[in-house]
């Protein structure tokens, strides 16, 4: 087994990124099993293509791009077979939050799950993962104006769903 040098270099960094990769995957796939499958595939791809990563550039953005492409491919394949899974009931881990905070988190997750694919990606990158509009647009391969309008539409929908205090309206 020969492992390329670049793969060794990013392996450790990927280990540190795993929690965030899993979080982003959860946003875009909307369920735990798909999310971890997606992370697994993306990490495998990253390691085999490690030479394509420019050292010094952001590994997180690069990984999110790989994940987005893999997920889009998967969605297309599922549509061809007309087997798009409905999102799971919101039952995700929400950590040690208070009951009120947990309710809000679950409502937010349920709202995000209802957004169209492209809006969910924008929300995941900018609002969950904290990428700038510019980095997010590059990751998604769209103009910054497109990213901005997807984000605005997503927020309008979520605002309507959640109301001002975060509980379902």
């Amino acid at each position, binding site marked *: 087994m*020969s492992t390329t040098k670049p793969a060794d270099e990013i392996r450790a960094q990927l280990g540190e990124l795993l929690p965030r990769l899993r*979080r982003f995957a959860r946003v875009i796939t909307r369920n735990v*099993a798909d999310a*971890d*499958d997606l992370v*697994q595939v993306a990490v*495998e791809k990253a390691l085999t293509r490690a030479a394509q990563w420019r050292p010094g550039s952001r590994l997180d953005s690069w990984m999110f791009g790989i994940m987005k492409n893999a997920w889009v491919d998967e969605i297309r394949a599922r549509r061809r077979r007309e087997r798009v899974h409905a999102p799971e009931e919101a039952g995700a881990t929400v950590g040690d939050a208070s009951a009120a905070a947990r309710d809000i988190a679950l409502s937010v997750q349920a709202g995000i799950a209802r957004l169209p694919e492209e809006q969910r990606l924008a929300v995941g990158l900018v609002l969950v993962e904290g990428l700038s509009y510019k980095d997010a647009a590059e990751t998604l391969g769209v103009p910054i104006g497109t990213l901005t309008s997807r984000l*605005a539409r997503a927020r309008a929908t979520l605002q309507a769903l959640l109301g001002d205090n975060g509980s379902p309206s």
Partner: protein
Amino acid sequence: MRFSDEMLMAYADGELDLVARAEIEAAMAKDPAVARAVERHRLLAGKIHTAYDGVLEETIPADLAALVADPEDARVVELASARAARRIAVGRWQLPAWTAIAASMLVGLFVGLLLFRGAPGPYEETDRGLLARGELAEGLATELASAPGRSNVRIGVSFRNRAGDFCRSFIYQRESPLAGLACHSGEDWKIRVLAETPASSGELRAAASMPMAVLQAVDVSIAGQALDAAAEEKAREAGWR
């Protein structure tokens, strides 16, 4: 309102330049409606940002952690723990899209793939693909994952794939052990994945390990859950049909 909602959103996200920021701040001071709109954007952004915090605290599934661990370790994932991880996150992605990916993973990471054309031994390359032969074929038909017998074939899991055929992951113990996934096809066991397992050594000798390539192949082809002991025995009695 002078500013579009998109502008206010960008302001709330800290995306505007100095000049635009100053303009919006002036508008906010003059018009409470503008200030409220910005505040709504900030509130929502905050809620979204924290909604997934819980994921960060979760334990990373063993098979994911193994991927980024030292490459030698990644090949020695102990079957039981990998299976336990699977119970939490059973791969349910559909086969066609993932076969290609699985194939590329094999090429990329498992150089130890052993597909010698015409090599004699526990398998044979035919028009229908790679078929198990001899002791391996015998073991695939008779061994149980729940009760390992005396042959050199150890079964990892048995399950039905999406096509409805019975499949079994296996380790064939010999000087350089082989591991793989075989599915029942006609009268034969068709080998879908074949990989060299890391030579076990020292105290690990008894516990041969299932390579990630095989575990992943199981994931992409399994329909539902692995067979339990009773279902496995029943399937064996029915001749894996």
